[in-house]
Structure formats: structure tokens, C-alpha cells
């Protein structure tokens, strides 16, 4: 089924939803549909229930972390410089740095068992990676997302509103960080070093000073 027809059908039946087709340049050609988080639930419900679509099988749910990206572009800037003949213009290369904000992304791979269609990757993005990491939970629509959304909450830190039982699933409850994020730093493992020396010994002493020997 063509993704553009799905998109136009969704736009007529779910008023106000903002959709975008994300092209996939690889040979797999599995293009995906990006939906805004406010209408994510309504779009998913329509995808499951509409007679022409019937995406009744949500196979895979996964998170992807996109940290902020810093891109530097070289531009030519004209500056006024004091020269021997008074003020004159001079072209100077200047590096301009732009940061695109990071976000967390959740991808649902939908299949239709009834119509033998799929996969349709459905994506939702959070606003950023720290403060607003909320997305609507699609577990009420597809039960198969239950453990997988818990896993994304655990490993990426996306908070799914409306999930019936949002707890950590693989890490223990007292764990603080989200280990699948790209900027996750491994905990200090000095205690596993049998003969601490050099760098490791320095880190061990620092760790002992910070924690007070605990």
C-alpha cells in the first residue's frame, strides 16, 4: 500500500493531525510515517480499525536516541578593516556553528495480518531529551507494546502517558540513568580491578572520596 494514500486518508479522517513521510534511502525502501505526539493515539486507533488499513499487528516497538547535533558551516563574511588606504572591505572565512536540538524517537513497526501488509514504521518524537519526554502510550491499542514501551522507558527515558504499568523492566528499580542513550557513561568499575593502579587507582580514590568509602 502506498504511504501517501495512507497519509491522505489519515489526514481526512483524523482532523488536525500533522503527518510527514520520512523517506528511507536504503534498498529496503521501508519509508515511515512521522506523526505528531498529540494525535499519535488517534492516528494509531484509526490505523488499526479502518477497514482499508487494518494494521492489527504491532510487531516491534523501539526507541532511537538522536542527541543534539552541532554542524559547522564555513561562510564568507565581509569585514571592515583598517588598511593603508583607510577603511576597506575584506572577505574573511568564518565558521558558523548551528546546533539542531536532540530528541528521542519511538518507532512502531505495524503489520496487517488481515490484509497481509507491512511493515509500516510509525514514528513519534519527543520535544527534547530532558524536560519534555512525554509521548502517548499505544498499549491500549496494541497490547504487544506493553513490555516494549516499558523497555523504552527503562533504557531511553521516554515517559508514556496512559501506559497501564510503567515501571523499569530490565534494570532494577533504583537505577537512575537510561543506558541506551548515546551519551550514557558506564559506571566506575574500579571495584572489579583486582590490582588498582595508575588511572584506575586515581579514579578509585576519587570515587572513595566522593562516596565516603561506601
Amino acid at each position, binding site marked *: 500500500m502506498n504511504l501517501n494514500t495512507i497519509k491522505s486518508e489519515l489526514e481526512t479522517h483524523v482532523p488536525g493531525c500533522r503527518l510527514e513521510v520520512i523517506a528511507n*534511502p*536504503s534498498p*529496503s525502501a521501508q519509508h515511515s510515517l512521522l506523526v505528531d505526539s498529540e494525535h499519535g493515539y488517534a492516528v494509531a486507533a484509526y490505523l488499526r480499525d479502518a477497514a482499508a488499513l487494518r494494521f492489527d499487528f*504491532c510487531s516491534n516497538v*523501539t526507541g532511537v536516541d538522536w542527541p543534539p547535533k552541532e554542524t559547522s558551516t564555513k561562510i564568507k563574511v565581509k569585514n571592515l578593516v583598517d588598511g593603508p588606504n583607510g577603511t576597506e572591505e575584506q572577505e574573511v572565512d568564518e565558521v558558523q556553528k548551528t546546533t539542531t536540538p536532540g530528541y528521542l524517537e519511538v518507532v512502531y513497526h505495524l503489520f496487517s495480518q488481515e490484509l497481509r501488509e507491512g511493515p509500516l*514504521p510509525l514514528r513519534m518524537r519527543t520535544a527534547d531529551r530532558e524536560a519534555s519526554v512525554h509521548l502517548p502510550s499505544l498499549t491500549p491499542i496494541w*497490547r504487544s507494546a506493553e513490555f516494549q514501551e516499558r523497555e523504552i522507558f527503562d533504557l531511553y527515558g521516554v515517559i508514556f502517558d496512559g501506559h497501564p504499568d510503567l515501571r523499569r523492566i*530490565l534494570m532494577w528499580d533504583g537505577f537512575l540513568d537510561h543506558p541506551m542513550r548515546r551519551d550514557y557513561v558506564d559506571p566506575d568499575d574500579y571495584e572489579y580491578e583486582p590490582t588498582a593502579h595508575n588511572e584506575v587507582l586515581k579514579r578509585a580514590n576519587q570515587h572513595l572520596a566522593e562516596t565516603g568509602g561506601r
Partner: protein
Amino acid sequence: MSAYPSPTSLLEPTAVAQEQLLEISMGPQHPSTHGVFRMNVILDGERVVKLKPVFGYLHRNHEKIAENETYLGSMPYTDRLDYLCSITNNWAYAIAVEKLAGIQVPERAEYLRVITGELTRLQNHASLLGFLLQDMGSSGTPLMYAFREREKILDLFEALTGARMMCNYMRFGGCRVDMPAGWLDQARQVVADFPKFLDEYEKLLVGNEILMERTQGVGVLSKELAINAGMSGPMARASGVSYDIRKVDKYSIYERFAFRVPLGSHGDVYDRYMMRFLEMRESLKILNEAMRDIPGGPIVDPKTKVRNFRPKPGEAYGRIESPKGELGFYLISDGGSNPYRYRVRPPSLINLTVLEDLCLGQNVADVVAILGSVDIVLGEVDR
């Protein structure tokens, strides 16, 4: 009047006893949990009123490790996901990468993949039946019968790949090694002998009254819930969901073989158990045809780079029908030598979504049978 209650009054449940719930922690070292898996079960007498699975005892963040590794470097590590079926794990990963990079697989390699993949299905289902019966208290004999057959198949794997369980057999665009001399005859012999084991096992157990009492009507899964909760493999087909990825996606060369997809009608433990029997018989048909038709030729696509393998930016989701269900790999490439995102869709974990639904209202002894019929391997559940 005596201070002690009469013996007959003890048999009647008191109001206090009815409200007394017992919370027990099954696992993680309980032998029936197939590894280190724990269930928090709340019991009213012997009846389960609540069950919460607890995961993570084998968690090593396989996905993160694979993201810091080259594409090919993760191939041996996929063996350790579902360590009973390493070859199908390799296959699913290879299919995902081949989709991502657009790699063609030569004919002979496809046949080798089908043969080893179906042998994997045979040994997984055989040992699962043994485990399930062992869990239900038929100690020793059925498990040893199943393991005797499994051992023959593991010998074949050892002769072919060098390892019994951690086979590391597939490569992107083909397989790692070709068959040694005489291997095909040995495999034909194993496949020819296998129906004898199935007949014997069926005669021993399928009509067994104790087995029927323990499994029929226990842990019933409806068709609607099976689809909605993402069940796949024999677990879904026992509930009547006609969905076999070998038929739906027609990946590899499965459309060339004549085989049928067995379906259950009750969705109970007995149907899930029978599903494995029937699937093994269908696998034998595929194996016989594949070993008859296997052509000569190269076993790996010569154009695929082994060193400095960098797929173009993009993403791909590839999946196969592994013995446990739908095993998928989702990869995002940013053009580098490591995958930017590497995700395993673990059938064992997702098939456990309905564990609580299946166990509610059942006796605590049935929990063991229900869990056994789901067919999980903890290396894949926790990753």
C-alpha cells in the same frame, strides 16, 4: 466445650481464610522457569489471582554492545540470544543487513540456510516438548528421548560449523562454510530417522490421559488477544491465527517448498504442545525437498565486502519465522561501520505479554505448564 475446633469445621473455609492471600516468588532459580526468570504470584489458596513477571537477571544490554561493534562483529553475539537456535538468530540478522545494504544471496546458500534453519526448528521443538513434560512431572524419560534426537542434529551442526550450539554460521550474502564431504548423506539419515522418533513420542504421550488432564483447557488464549498482544509463532497458531512468516513474507526460497501451516482451535496448552509435533512433520517435508534439490555453486555473494563494510544511510526491519516466533532485527545505518541503532525484536519476551492473562484463575501448578508451553529462552528475553 472443647477449646479446639472439631476436625470437620477445619475443612470449611472461614471468612479469614478466604481473605488470606499468599504471595510467592517463583524463580529466579526455580528449575521450571527455564533460566533466571521470576514471577511474583499472588495466590488465593491454589488459585492465581495476580502474576507479575520480573525480568532482567540476564540483561547485558546486547543492543548497546552491538552498536559499539561492527556489523559482522555482532554476528557471533546473536548466537547467544536464543542459545537453542543460534542459526535462526544468525539468519534473521543476516536478512536485516541484506535488506539494509541490498545484498543478493546465491542459490546454494539459500538452500543451506533453509536446511540448517529447519534442522534448528526440529531440535528446538523436540527439546521444548521434553522440557515441557519434564516441567509437568514426567521426570527424565521424555526429556532424554528428545535430547537423544537433538544430539544427532547438534552433531550435524558440529560437523558443518565447528560448534554444537554457538554456530555463527551465516554471513551477509551467504553462509560461512560449505558442507563437508558426506554431510548431506548424514543429514538425510537423521531426517529419515526422525519420523520414527515422532511416532514413538506421539504414541507415548499424545493420548496420555494424565497429560490431557493437565493441559486441555488450561491457559486458553483467544484469537483476538493473540493478534492484539503480538503473539507469533506456534503460540499464535495454536489459537488459530493463520500467520506464518515463511508463507507471508516468502523470504529466502520458502515459496518453492510444499508445506502446510498447522493451526490449533482451542489455544490451550495442549494445542500449543501439539503444534510443535505438527510443525516438526512439516519441517521434515521441507528438509526432504531442500536436500533433494540443493544445487551447486558459490555459498556467498562475492561482491559483498567483508572488511570495511559500511551500508549507506537508511534503515531496515528484517524478520524471519524462528522456532519461537517472529524474530526481527531493526537496523539504522548512518553510513559508518557500526550500526547507529540495532534492535532485536525478541519473540520470547513479547510472547510473555499474555502470561498473566493465561494464568489468572488457574492453579499454581498449571503456571509451570503454561510457562513451559510459551517456549522462552532467557538469553533472548533479557538480552
